[in-house]
């Protein structure tokens, strides 16, 4: 047993190496001063990052990706939070069917979704454009937002909402004063998830993007087809920083937020002090 456990441990280390070594090599090579950006490394330099900064196409791709990701996150999270509230807080006929419908965009292969949306909106007179990209990104990030937000919402107790309602708050007032602050970590998590999925997407984006507009992933893809320029590794590193650091910061912020909420003594909260105080302002 002891030796087979060691084998499992060794296997785990190897699998983790397999998952992370290639990415680590990208980061390592992005600091390579060699002209070809490959092994052997000659020295450490930031020249490829400077080259990125001077490359107008890449800067523009970053702007496009950031704007697209932010808009996707806002729209997708709004739709997703409302739908999740309905799914977690209410019972209604046809709920299982609705649950399947809400995650349908992940069940359909992204290529098929991309083709269907492109051709249908094309027939409706919407050309390949930024709005088409945005519609596409919203529809396929939506299920992920709903899954994440639902998972978090389940653990948010509804006593506070009921207390607020019984004290005379309307549903909308209750939502903004009680529910939203309570589920804020879930909302942020959903938004960040939508942002990173949108920021990373290439499969649908290549179908929907108009000529001349590139997002960061399609820009990398285009650069890959020409030649393996060392700039790509630097671009990869920047992208890893954006997509990894952001969620980590988000998670840290959510944890702090959660701690602050939980920090309030339990018996006071149960007495309804929290909701009472917010209501008294009116």
């Amino acid at each position, binding site marked *: 047993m002891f030796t087979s456990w060691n084998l499992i441990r060794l296997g*785990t280390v190897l699998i983790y190496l397999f998952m992370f070594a290639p990415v680590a090599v990208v980061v390592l090579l992005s600091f390579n001063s060699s002209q070809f950006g*490959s092994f052997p490394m000659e020295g450490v330099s930031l020249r490829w990052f400077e080259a990125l900064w001077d490359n107008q196409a890449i800067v523009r791709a970053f702007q496009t990706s950031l704007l697209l990701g932010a808009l996707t996150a806002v729209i997708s999270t709004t739709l997703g939070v409302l*739908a999740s509230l309905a799914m977690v807080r209410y019972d209604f006929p046809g709920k299982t069917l609705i649950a399947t419908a809400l995650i349908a965009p992940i*069940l359909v292969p992204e290529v098929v*979704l991309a083709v269907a949306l492109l051709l249908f909106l094309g027939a409706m007179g919407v050309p390949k454009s930024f709005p088409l990209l945005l519609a596409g990104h919203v529809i396929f990030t939506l299920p992920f937002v709903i899954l994440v937000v*639902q998972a978090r919402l389940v653990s948010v107790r509804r006593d506070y909402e009921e207390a607020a309602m019984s004290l005379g708050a309307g549903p909308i007032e209750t939502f903004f004063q009680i529910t939203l602050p309570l589920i804020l970590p879930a909302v942020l998590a959903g938004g960040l998830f939508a942002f990173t999925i949108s920021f990373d997407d290439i499969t649908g984006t290549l179908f929907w993007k108009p000529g001349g507009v590139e997002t960061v992933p399609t820009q990398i893809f285009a650069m890959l087809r020409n030649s393996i320029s060392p700039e790509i590794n630097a671009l*990869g590193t920047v992208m890893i920083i954006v997509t*990894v650091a952001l969620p980590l910061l988000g998670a840290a912020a959510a944890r702090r937020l959660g701690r602050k909420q939980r920090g309030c003594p339990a018996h006071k909260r149960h007495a309804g002090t929290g909701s009472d105080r917010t209501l008294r302002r009116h």
Partner: protein
Amino acid sequence: MASLDPMDNAWRPWRLLAPALSAIFLLLVVPVAFIVVYSFWLRTATGADIAGFHLDNWIEVLTDPFYRDIMGFTIWIAFATTVVCAVAGYVPAYFIATTQFKHKAFLLLLLMLPFWISYIIRTMSWINILGSSGIVNAALIWIGLTDEPIQMLYNQWTVIVGLVHFLLPFMILNIYVSLYGIDRNLVDAARSLGCTGWQAFREVTLPLSLPGLAAGSLLCFVLGAGTYITPLVLGGPTDAMFANLVFDAIITQLNWPLGSALSLVLLILLGCVVAVYNRFAGMGQIAKSFG
């Protein structure tokens, strides 16, 4: 929730659902219905569409051996990827689920990390590893095993490596979720009844983790079979998968009716896989891994 008007209460969930459901209806359901209709149209050489009910696209897609071979190749790649992911993914999932290691949470966090790292970056990172000026060739030349770089990239095996690299976290996470839910007492009971460690694993742990294994396999197969970027980046000129055909028909040849038929074939194939899975396991298992 407390509300004075019972009718109002019954409508509230639908009002909350309305924006999301209408988005899904308008941007998914109607478009898919649209390409079903469109696949029966014809595109003439001049680029005009002939509306109507023509079976030509479907006959071409279903009978031409060219499409059939690529479909076979796609299924092979997705299947091989899934098997490799299942075998390779079980080990770390089992380790994380059973270890007393104090940095377990850190291992789990690392597992989530690839979800946040761009797919295109992870795919192209293999060029740095296996390419002619990559780390493996540099090492081989340095040791003196070879003078010229060995061509390792751009074949079906590197496509599988790239896909496994992309999909492994999905598999590990799903297996971990089901392993985590197993009552440890069951394994102890099996051991006390005389099972060896391996027997206890085979008779108790493995069967109980099958739901996670199945959910992970479904995700790997469906996502693997629908990809067209990995074969473009890591495959050779003959390693086109089915989604590459769709992309060519739609974007390069601009034959939209044919592209519609091709993407529906992919949808039906993967839909059957999902339906079989749903029949035996249910979709709930996949949602669990988001918890």
